[in-house]
């Protein structure tokens, strides 16, 4: 973000080999570095894309219905019939994960989109609205940002009980302020740019400036930020479900699957490891992808 505060560098068009910080035209190490970035991007894209596909089509592919009791064996191991074993009630774990992933990915996507939409929308207020209104909105968001997200979710669940709309509300309340803060500082910086002032002088309206001059220039950063938020929201929601305060039975997301099978941990049951690994790979994949995207963007900018 610091790089955005400075005016565009006059030499912005020079080849990227002349990066800031190193005044020597470093050739070989840079190139190697870039190839590695590509690698993390492909790993991230592959893993994250896999989970998106699972969320979209998983329930269709599930061999058994989610709630069906298919086996007499509790915490059954890996077998041909049940590739990920059975859970604490003898249900097919693969089917439950395929269905649970839809809750985890879907809820987090909805919450991340809403957070970014609300946050970025209010963030552009600095261009659209009078100063006093902007200040008061900022005060509210600054207060919300100083409540840790888990605290917000716990307090809201204790007051209203756990339900899916409430979980999304709590998540948006804790993650929209961060999105606001970033979008706001981006918009404020962009508003001082010459081309925006030219538009002002041309006599363009505030809405036009926000939509045509500011928004297209911040959309990429807002999307990257949304990706980060997605990762944190997956962690928050599966954490809440793990505590038994998130998605409630009979529905189950990946966090709930870890919770209900935690009793099998002392036997080393695959039923508890598999959903935990599922969440881990989803968040790691998304994180690697976003990091490689934002790093390569930063390299382009210099």
């Amino acid at each position: 973000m610091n790089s955005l505060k400075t005016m565009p560098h006059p030499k912005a068009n020079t080849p990227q080999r002349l990066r800031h910080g190193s005044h020597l035209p470093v050739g070989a190490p840079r190139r190697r570095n870039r190839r590695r970035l590509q690698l993390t991007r492909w790993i991230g894209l592959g893993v994250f894309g896999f989970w998106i596909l699972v969320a979209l089509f998983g329930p269709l592919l599930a061999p058994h219905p989610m709630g069906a009791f298919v086996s007499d064996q509790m915490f059954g191991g890996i077998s041909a019939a049940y590739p990920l074993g059975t859970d604490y009630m003898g249900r097919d774990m693969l089917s439950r994960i395929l269905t649970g992933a839809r809750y985890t990915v879907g809820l987090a996507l909805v919450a991340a989109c809403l957070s970014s939409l609300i946050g970025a929308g209010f963030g552009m207020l600095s261009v659209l609205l009078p100063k006093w209104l902007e200040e008061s909105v900022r005060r509210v968001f600054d207060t919300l940002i100083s409540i840790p997200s888990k605290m917000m979710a716990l307090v809201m669940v204790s007051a209203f009980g756990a339900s899916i709309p409430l979980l999304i509300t709590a998540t948006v309340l804790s993650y929209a302020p961060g999105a606001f803060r970033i979008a706001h500082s981006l918009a404020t910086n962009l508003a001082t740019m010459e081309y925006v002032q030219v538009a002002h002088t041309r006599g363009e309206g505030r809405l036009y400036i926000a939509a045509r001059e500011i928004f297209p220039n911040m959309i990429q950063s807002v999307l990257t930020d949304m990706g980060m938020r997605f990762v944190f929201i997956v962690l928050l929601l599966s954490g809440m479900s793990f505590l038994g305060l998130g998605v409630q039975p009979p529905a189950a997301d990946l966090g709930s699957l870890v919770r209900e099978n935690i009793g099998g941990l002392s036997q080393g049951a695959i039923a508890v490891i598999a959903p935990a690994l599922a969440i881990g790979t989803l968040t790691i994949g998304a994180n690697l992808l976003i990091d490689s995207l934002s790093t390569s963007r930063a390299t382009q900018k210099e």
Partner: protein
Amino acid sequence: MRNTLFGLVAGRLGASLLTLFLVSLVIFAITSLLPGDTAQQILGQFATPEQVAALRAQLGLNQPAIVRYWHWLSGFVTGDLGQSASNGMAVAQLINDRLPNSLILAGITTLVSVPIAITMGVVAAMRRGGLIDRLLNLVTLSMVAVPEFLVATLAVLIFAVKLNWLPALSYVSTVDSLGDAMKIYAMPVLTLCCVLIAQMARMTRAALIDQLDSPYVEMAQLKGVPPIRRVMRHALPNAVGPIANAVALSLSYLLGGVIIVETIFNYPGIASLMVDAVSNRDLSLVQACAMLFCGTYLVLVMLADICAILSNPRLRNR
């Protein structure tokens, strides 16, 4: 002048107090906007309307929200946190019993993670672009995104189930020797450390690289100062402020992690107390715990800011 520095720190302190006040307002607003009401909840569904009305009057629920908020807040300042709805004990007593356990856990985690994280960050920054740096980058980037319960589950599986070295649950009361204590704390601390170290190492690396990129380090390099000395004598002292800032900020992640870790290991700390309170919808206990956590969070963020202010030589020497 000292005055500017003092003014900045005092200003930051005041801002934190104001935020804490606003946070208390939010927490109170959420918890008293109940669709049902507390009296109804205490008495259950079969209470007569007269009983509910009587209890409402007894609890002071008929007063306007602003009066109740004032009572609640003044109770906080004087240490009267009200009573737990589920077992009738004083909230202050409950918290008092559990708080030391959580503080010990957080303390040990800090002591273990900070040196490791800083070393990792410094090494990565010195070998920037090298194999170690890239490896550490990949590892920390992955660890940042790993849920605590995955680390905890794997730790239990490996150390308690497969290797049988450690007990799967923590019972603080059965500590007899140092060895016992280490066995109990090993896995909760290990789990908390994983995410924390990754966070801190990344931030330390960024802070140090920021310094290594500056002209005075390049000057030292041109003079022929060897790399180790360049980092230890030139860059590191200037990066202490940002690193302290990073450490304080990362420690605030402990608050979220400790909730999961205390639950999974059955550790009798303040976070598991709060999770139980949320399950039982024991609102006064939830309010108190939430305020405690939010307060701690604000203190850590404030410490991070103050470290940044104090370490800025332009402010210190003016």
